[in-house]
């Protein structure tokens, strides 16, 4: 072994040019692979933080009647099927040890109406219990104007992105009730028209659904303006409303309706999947005009979990750290049999966003593999040429009694030394680069780039596992690149050496 490495090391020094070529390729490949792996990890962590921990959770429960798994960014006009069996679902979820937390939500499209114009706009509504939402996603956004809704308060939070869009469409600048215009938050065009700015502290929205329920237009007081930590242009399409207002807007049964109007026997009927829908809307059970509906006092809404008695469209679920998606999904769907819902991953539920995340990750992976292939090809060519140029030397070694394994070992030794030195330097440089990049605070407003960046600024991350992965990739490149040249070298016979001389 010592002899092999001695000859290998000295041959590297003797053929400095070729060694440098191979070394530079290995250095560059290792550097880019390290940074690439860091970007992939940063992206995964960003997705984890901003999408999974910031908006949707790991898994989403949707109605079995829901045709498409994509419920988040679905086509306008296609509503999300209601989920009416939340009480039953809740019991099942509470019994699953791998489920950390869950949050029922309403999600659908609403028309945004304004008296000054006949053309309606649109907004996605996300109906939530604000107190539970904060527990589920504590760091997903900050309220930059107004306040976070109190428990049980009828409330609407408009994201900054949606507010800018509303301004473009209606020429109205929304602000919280009792609030003042904050110039720093004004869009450029709004700032330019500051003197004649149309202000409003409430929004009229009418739910849109393809179901048979009658939707209602509701005047929502603006409670606050929020900004998401990242992916503000995607998440910023969603106005958060309290779940009861959401239900009224969409014409669903509210918790008050469930508590006040539905006799016990018919409540039980409502809990059944696939029941006769017509019977739900007959006679006394029709939802009355929300303007005439009894206003729930704040005190009443503070009663524990009253709002749970009502309709939702989905349940966001967070799994315990480290749980396997596939296994959890399987177990959960089995446990939920008969409840009228199915579980899907956040990727599927988020439609194009999840798909885009997967595409970006695949593109990065393909990039790393391409690097790998280019490195292998160049190294193979260079080493093969080297083997042929050293035919005399190799043939002589074979003539004096070196076995083929010795010759192969010599080539592998040379490649291993180059890989360790230059590849190792590449990995170390990559680690330094990944540490330095976040300090540069490279930002972007583009949401797809934010997915790649793992947030608002470019934040690649490297774990010990990532460094180990790069080392394994480098080892693989080394071995694969040395295979063909080794084969060429061991085929050199003593006779070939003498013939060349």
């Amino acid at each position, binding site marked *: 072994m010592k002899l092999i490495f001695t*000859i290998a090391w000295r041959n590297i020094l003797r053929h400095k040019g070729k060694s440098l070529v191979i070394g530079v390729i290995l250095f560059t490949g290792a550097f880019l692979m390290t940074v690439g792996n860091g970007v992939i990890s940063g992206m995964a962590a960003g997705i984890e933080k901003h999408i999974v921990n910031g908006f949707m959770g790991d898994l989403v429960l949707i109605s079995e009647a829901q045709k498409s798994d994509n419920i988040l960014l679905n086509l306008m006009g296609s509503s999300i099927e209601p989920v009416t069996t939340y009480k039953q679902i809740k019991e099942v979820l509470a019994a699953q040890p791998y489920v950390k937390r869950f949050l029922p939500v309403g999600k659908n499209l609403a028309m945004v109406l304004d008296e000054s114009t006949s053309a309606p706009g649109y907004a996605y509504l996300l109906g939530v219990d604000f107190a539970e939402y904060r527990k589920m996603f504590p760091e997903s956004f900050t309220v930059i104007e107004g306040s976070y809704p109190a428990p049980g308060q009828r409330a609407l939070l408009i994201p900054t992105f949606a507010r800018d869009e509303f301004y473009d469409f209606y020429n109205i600048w929304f602000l919280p009730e009792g609030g003042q215009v904050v110039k720093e938050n004004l869009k450029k065009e709004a700032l330019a028209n500051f003197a004649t700015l149309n202000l409003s502290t409430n929004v009229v929205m009418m739910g849109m659904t393809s179901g048979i329920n009658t939707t209602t237009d509701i005047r929502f007081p603006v409670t606050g303006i929020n900004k998401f930590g990242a992916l503000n242009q995607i998440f910023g399409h969603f106005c958060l409303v309290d779940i009861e207002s959401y239900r009224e807007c969409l014409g669903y049964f509210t918790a008050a309706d469930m508590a006040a109007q539905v006799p016990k026997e018919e409540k039980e009927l409502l809990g059944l999947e696939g029941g006769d829908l017509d019977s739900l809307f007959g006679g006394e059970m029709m939802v009355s005009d929300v303007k005439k509906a009894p206003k729930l006092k704040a005190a009443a809404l503070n009663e524990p979990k009253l709002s749970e008695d009502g309709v939702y469209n989905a349940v966001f679920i967070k799994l315990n750290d480290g749980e396997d998606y596939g296994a959890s999904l399987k177990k959960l769907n089995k446990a939920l049999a008969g409840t009228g819902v199915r579980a899907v991953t956040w990727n599927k539920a988020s439609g194009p966003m999840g798909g885009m995340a997967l595409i970006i990750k695949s593109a990065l992976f393909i990039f790393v593999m391409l690097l790998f292939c280019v490195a292998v090809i160049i190294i193979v060519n260079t080493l093969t040429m080297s083997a042929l140029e050293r035919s005399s030397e190799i043939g002589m070694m074979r003539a*004096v009694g070196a076995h083929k394994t010795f010759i192969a070992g010599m080539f592998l030794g040379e490649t291993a030394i180059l890989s360790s030195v230059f590849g190792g330097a590449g990995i170390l440089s990559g680690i330094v680069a990944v540490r330095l990049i976040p300090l540069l605070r490279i930002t972007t407003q583009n949401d797809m780039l934010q997915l790649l960046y793992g947030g608002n600024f470019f934040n690649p991350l490297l774990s010990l596992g990532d460094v180990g992965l790069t080392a394994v990739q480098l080892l693989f490149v080394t071995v694969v690149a040395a295979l063909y040249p080794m084969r060429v070298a061991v085929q050199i016979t003593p*006779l070939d*050496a003498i013939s060349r001389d």
Partner: protein
Amino acid sequence: MDIIEIKGLRKDYPLGDTIVPALRGVDLTVAEGDFMSIIGPSGSGKTTLLNVIGCIDFATAGSVKVGEHEITSLTDRQITEIRLNKIGFIFQTFNLIPVLNVIENIEFPLLLMKKSAAEARKRADKLIEEVGLKEYAVHRPAELPGGQRQRVAIARALVTNPDIILADEPTANLDSVTGASILELMRRMNEIEKTTFIFSTHDANVLKYARRIVKIKDGLIEKEPALA
């Protein structure tokens, strides 16, 4: 005792659609301790004969016995072992390993035999003295003239105590004085180590050093001339 026995050796080389016979049925025996020269014009087959004896090339037909081994039926691994343990080579162009110094080149075959570093160095030191190159021990081959490089090659060939040393035109790239000193050295090693030497040449001046001369022409052994 005969260390080499060759019967009916034929070696053909395909050249496109033509077959070129290099050896046409050679019969030869070599006794242990012989200092033999194979002489013949260019293209006569002397290098081919040496290559077949040295297990570098393979017979098309016939029988070749080196020691007790019939080499025509051995695997590559077995043949390599024979080359390592039984045969030493001295090439016309020296063929030293350029990245190893003189002493490392000499001990190289011993390390291939998995001898310990200390043992290999001890044997190499002895031989480097015998070939008169002690003061050049740490020099690389590129730093030495041709004659000294050939001395290193001789020491390397002898280091494993082989039964046979094959030298293909060992003085062809050397001037006459240096060539003569090399042949003297080979003869001395033959006397000291009792190793069988077979060397090929087409130089008549080299013949005076041989104790036995085999003449080859057109792939066949001619009658051995009597030595003066």
